[in-house]
């Protein structure tokens, strides 16, 4: 279970990333954030966001048209 869940379903680029950034900064270091998104660009974009910021994607899955990521805030 992630510490927080962000429902970004229905939002288009770049809102899922912007909202995820806000939500992850509200967590303590090591805290986890689950993001749910329907933007098909989210898969590549969250990978790039993770590589650039160092907030690691520790889980990733797809259910129907919903992409789920669990991000871990950088220590």
């Amino acid at each position, binding site marked *: 279970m992630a510490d927080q869940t962000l429902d970004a379903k*229905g939002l*288009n*680029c*770049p*809102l899922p*990333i*912007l909202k995820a*950034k806000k939500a992850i900064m509200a967590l303590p270091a090591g805290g986890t954030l689950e993001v749910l998104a329907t933007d098909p660009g989210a898969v590549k974009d969250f990978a*790039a*966001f993770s590589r650039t910021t160092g907030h690691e994607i520790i889980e990733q899955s797809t259910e129907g048209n919903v992409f789920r990521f669990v991000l871990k805030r950088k220590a």
Partner: protein
Amino acid sequence: MADASGTKSMSIIVTKGTLDWAYPPMILSTTAAAMGLNVTLFFTFYGLTLLLKNPGLRMSPLGNPAMKMPMMGGHMGMPNFMSMIPGVDAGASLMMKDMMKKKGVATFEELRSLAIESDVRLIACQMTMDLFEYTLDDMIPGIELGGAATYIEVATQSDINLFI
């Protein structure tokens, strides 16, 4: 170039003030800020519109054959003469805003607020402010004034410099 703390930076010269062209600088600056970059936007000429308290952004299909809107299962452009009819540009702008809302695209104002919130530095070109007779009272709070040298200094220190 990354600064002493390893933070990268980006600058964008923003020269256009129509609804469609307002998006790229706002999307890129908010996203770069979210990815940890220091971002500076330099607004000049029609780009100044994007800093107005009430930007009332519009777009025009005039001279833009690439502007084809999804319609009845296909894509439809608009002949140039249509743009001369009063209300057509306003209608096209409303259509675009409506389409964006339906597709979950942020409004321009929303992105601008997010940019301010994430400390994107907003510089208005002093010369074009004077040229178009704008004062700081016309603009949203928190912007700075600067000239070409101010921008060049920022650009020499940035990893990414774009012109939009």
